[in-house]
């Protein structure tokens, strides 16, 4: 149903941005202690597209995602190597501080995690204040714009001083998206953003993803193949730490090259 309609758009999008890679992942390995959770992954992500990482649980898709903003190394005992080049800058270069990287690469997590002691407004502006922004007018403008872009503005515009936790689960997740968008990221990483939401909340997030790609490059991890098919332009299938196959979503779902991919897509395992 929904799968058929946007395909033409996607093909177009693919052609328009064909030569521009926003994120280049080169020989990235992710380690937990001496255990290698992802192995030599190579992958290029085009600007202003949605790329989905799919695969059975434990395949390393979340680890790979967390390598893309150097969040992986925050886990005790974990580290990563290889190159992740965003706009020509290798974020794993020794001279690069992860603090700077994370302004440009936003992240949304599995479970909504607004700051419980902050109001809705403060949640969205948290990153701005953190980074030293103290122009109140600009902060207010950005908060409003971010909430609008996260499709939450109309629901909360009169309750900006209410605590972030007063919102429903789906609203909280959109608040977290707004919080990430406020940092004006160029890339937005989403780690199974709908896994803890009900179907209505999930569909709102999916709708949002399709709209947001006009401005940001989105990489989304999902365990839900239908979701990947609905929202993404490109899909990467991972299995046991290896990138098995990567291509346009259309191709991966309709005409996978690898047998493993085909078996996973058709629900034979996973």
């Amino acid at each position, binding site marked *: 149903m929904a799968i058929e309609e946007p395909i033409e758009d996607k093909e177009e999008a693919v052609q328009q941005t064909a030569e521009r890679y926003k994120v280049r992942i080169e020989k990235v390995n992710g380690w937990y202690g001496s255990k290698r959770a992802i192995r030599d992954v190579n992958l290029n992500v085009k600007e202003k597209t949605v790329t989905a990482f799919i695969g059975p649980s434990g395949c390393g898709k979340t680890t790979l995602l967390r390598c893309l903003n150097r969040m992986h190394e925050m886990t005790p005992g974990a580290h990563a190597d290889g190159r992740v080049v965003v706009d020509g800058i290798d974020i794993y270069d020794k001279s690069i501080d992860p*603090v700077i990287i994370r302004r440009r690469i936003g992240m949304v997590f599995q479970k909504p995690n607004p700051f419980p002691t902050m109001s809705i407004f403060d949640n969205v502006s948290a990153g*701005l204040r953190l980074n*030293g*922004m103290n122009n109140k007018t600009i902060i207010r403008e950005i908060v409003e*714009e971010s909430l609008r*872009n996260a499709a939450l503005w109309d629901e909360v515009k009169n309750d900006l001083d209410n605590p972030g936790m007063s919102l429903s689960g789906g609203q909280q997740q959109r608040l977290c998206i707004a919080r990430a968008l406020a940092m004006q990221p*160029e890339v937005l990483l989403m780690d199974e953003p709908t896994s803890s939401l009900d179907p209505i909340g999930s569909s709102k997030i999916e709708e949002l993803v399709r709209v947001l790609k*006009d401005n940001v490059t989105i990489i989304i991890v999902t365990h839900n193949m239908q979701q990947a098919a609905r929202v993404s332009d490109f899909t990467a299938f991972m299995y046991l730490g290896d990138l098995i196959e990567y291509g346009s979503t259309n191709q991966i779902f309709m005409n996978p090259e690898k047998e493993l991919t085909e078996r996973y897509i058709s629900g034979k395992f996973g």
Partner: protein
Amino acid sequence: MTVDSNSNSNSKPKQNYRDILQETVNKKYRKRLLLNRLVTIFTIVCVIAAVVPLVSILLEVVKNGASAISIEFLTQPPGSMGSGTGGIAPAIQGTIIVVGIASLIAAPIGVLAGIYLSEFAKKGEFVEIVRFFNDVLTGLPSIVIGIVGYTAIVLSIGSFSVLAGSVSLSIIMIPIVVRVTEETLKVVPYSLREAGHSLGISKTKVTLFVILPSAKNGILTGIVIAISRIAGETAPLIMTILGTSLFFTGITGPVDALPLRIWRLASQPYESAHAFGWGSALILILMILALSMGLRFLAQRRSLKAVK
């Protein structure tokens, strides 16, 4: 959704925000990194500041204490004041007796009350009162407990006594044991209780022979922690056992104790008394250490047996 129409009209200022923000980040981030580094250094300095006293205390106690210890020191009553002769044997004996009796009072009562809170209590006001009063007992200043020991026991039997000291120390020990027991028992899986009850075994038996044994190590550790705590208490002993230079004469008579002896020795103007004070401190630390080592050894041997 209204997003679609907005995002296009907003796309121009948005680019603007990104530049402003990146500029702010670039301008401020060195300062932020510096602050982060300063805080990190501060925390490390604090850790060192906390470890230095420990090292110094241990060094001083061992250094000054070891030279004071001799056979005479361990077996003789104190000589005349300032002479540097005699020993602290009555204090060692007194600490063992007073702490021993206090433990005999506090351990059973504490464990039983802990069992009550964890196994037998139904939700209600009484449980809350017991828990609350237990918290109150935990926070009582030890000097106040000394006052209680004095007015309740010393005044009624007319003499500073082992009994008064032991009861006072037991008041300090009971709430610690109650809490540890309750918390340890709560961790025992509920399935164990269900299994017992489903076999038609009475609650008493399930508690005594199933739940308590599986929580034994935790409770024992708690009791040992509580004993180490009261073994070092000084204030309540001042007004209950008084402290003498003589050996134990009876449960209603005064007696000496190590912490008390240390205090008295430290306030004397003689170098030899101070040396004895360090020696007594070393003995006290060794006794507490031996207690917890002994427990660990016991627990390990038991669990080895269980493996076999």
